[in-house]
């Protein structure tokens, strides 16, 4: 007998064509997004792009002007936050100051009526998971910033929510602790297989921990993809410039497939077909390497300035009036001097046309 076909699992969270406007101002426009069970999705974008609004729509703190919100397949658009199966961690820990650490974590379990032997067991189990054992009797103000944020995580996760929502949870921590905490959070949510949506404006953070990154701009999704897709294959100028650093060079289609001309008459072979007569080519600074004048995709430039950064050196170069940034290993940049003409080369696989 054959196994029955698996029942397709609904996405943990689904936003279906949601719009949100405040008076005349549109914060979100026709945004649709599925978050699969167990994945860690980062909403990434500059401030005002609608990422926090999206998170608050999922949580139920704001309601969409149009469109619907689903959690585990159920329409929750009209439900208040406490009837949605969510967990949330805010920018600062927002622990209840009048309750002990134990009582903070126990708070949600009381609200859903978990009785005591079980409740204590679950709280203590969560303490072990987030390495807070022994701190239960303390009050929030007696903990360090990192410990407080771990309590906030424990408090949300102990309810086993359908989705964990993190609103810039590391922004109140100092730089070193932030990196440490984000690794810890990634390990934790993967260990618990907890579906997670994280909002951040820090692209490094998003690339470092996300399974999928959703790049947002002006209330719309610009691109969704794995961190390496977002970085290597940006699909718009916004994504190319927002994620990492990128040279955007105005270009014209050169007739043939996968060929464009840029300033100075340079003919460039590129990775994709130009979708139009005019546009830009996107080249990451580290993809420009020293050339020998022979290879195709050769660019003759003049060195304007150096910025020494330890292992790497940033070169500011120009082709006539077109300025570019080049990121070279410092060992290779050592021999170069300002004003010197230079041959650079770029692999066609790393040059993409953007309309």
């Amino acid at each position, binding site marked *: 007998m054959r196994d029955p076909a698996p029942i397709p699992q609904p996405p943990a969270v689904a936003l279906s064509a949601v719009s949100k406007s405040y008076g005349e101002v549109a914060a979100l426009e026709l945004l649709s997004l599925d978050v699969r069970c167990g994945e860690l999705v980062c909403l990434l974008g500059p401030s005002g792009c609608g990422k926090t609004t999206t998170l608050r729509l999922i*949580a139920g703190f704001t309601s969409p002007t149009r469109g619907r919100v689903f959690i585990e397949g159920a329409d929750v658009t009209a439900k208040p936050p*406490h009837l949605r199966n*969510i967990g949330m961690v*805010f920018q600062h820990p*927002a*622990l209840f100051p009048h309750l002990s650490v134990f009582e903070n974590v126990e708070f*949600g379990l009381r609200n859903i009526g978990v009785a005591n032997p079980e409740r204590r067991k679950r709280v203590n189990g969560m303490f072990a998971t987030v390495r807070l054992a022994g701190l239960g009797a303390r009050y929030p103000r007696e903990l360090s910033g990192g410990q407080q944020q771990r309590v906030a995580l424990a408090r*949300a996760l102990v*309810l086993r929510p359908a989705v964990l929502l993190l609103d810039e949870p590391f922004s109140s921590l100092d730089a070193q602790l932030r990196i440490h905490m984000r690794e810890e959070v990634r390990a934790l949510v993967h260990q618990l297989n907890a579906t997670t949506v994280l909002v951040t404006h820090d692209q490094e953070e998003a690339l470092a921990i996300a399974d999928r990154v959703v790049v947002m701009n002006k209330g719309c999704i610009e691109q969704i993809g794995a961190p390496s897709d977002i970085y290597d294959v940006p699909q718009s100028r916004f994504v190319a410039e927002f994620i990492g650093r990128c040279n955007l060079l105005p270009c014209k289609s050169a007739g043939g497939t996968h060929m464009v001309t840029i300033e100075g008459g340079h003919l460039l072979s590129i990775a994709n077909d130009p979708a139009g007569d005019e546009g830009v080519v996107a080249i990451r600074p580290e993809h420009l390497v020293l050339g020998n004048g022979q290879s195709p995709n050769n660019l003759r430039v003049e060195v304007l300035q150096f910025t020494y950064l330890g292992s790497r050196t940033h070169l500011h170069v120009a082709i006539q009036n077109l300025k570019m940034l080049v990121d070279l290993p410092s060992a290779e940049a050592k021999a170069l001097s300002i004003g010197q003409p230079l041959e650079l080369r770029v692999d066609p696989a790393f040059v993409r046309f953007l309309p």
Partner: protein
Amino acid sequence: MPWQNSRLSLLGWGLFQVAAYFVLALPSLVIIGASLNPASTFSFPPRGLTLAWYMKAMETPAFTDSFLLSVELACLATALSLLAGTPAAYALQRYRLPGLQSLHSLLLSPIVIPAIVLGIGLLMFANLIGIGQGLAALLLGHFVLTLPYVVRTLISSFSLFDVVLEEAAQSLRASWPVVWFRVILPNIIPGLLSAAIFAFVTSFGNVALSIFLVSGSAATLPVQMFAAVEHSSDPTLAAVATFVILITGAIVLCIDRLANLQRLI
């Protein structure tokens, strides 16, 4: 600046403080002195010590009955003001709705309207709705009188309370009543206590409003004292006044301790 550290200016500052405390405490000191004076008319400084006037005050039904009425009235008015004022202050602090600003001004207006105007207005209103003078009218009047203090105190409490805590509670499955009773109220206890002191003391000491609203048979203690001082200079009154000072002081002290304790826990 050099003058800040000079010995002379420190001495001057100390003298100024002593003088200020003395002026503030003087009326109380005179009353306390007079209440302990065996002389049969109101006089100061005392020429002996006696508790006779206290005994007499406790045997005067006009004072004991009106004291009990004042306590009852102050408790009821405080409770009512807290019940109505807490949600009102919350709404005024949290929400930005059209009309809320004028409601805010309206709620605080009894502070600036002269009490005598308020008293006449309330008397006419009480007669109009048919409750006449008496406890109901007094309670209504004292509610109006104490509400602004409660609202003002609690607005500042709520502005210190982090809204994110409410959202955190909601995200942890707390319904609105749970958010109120387990998160908001425990965090504004110091504000509630000081609002309660303000309300109680304001109600307990009020003459100007009460004088219009008391019924002939049952006056509040301050009204009774006001009436008594008009036709006698009996030091019994000083004994009653001293008692009022002690009670008010004790309440303020107690609640201040409680509020401090709350902050320590």
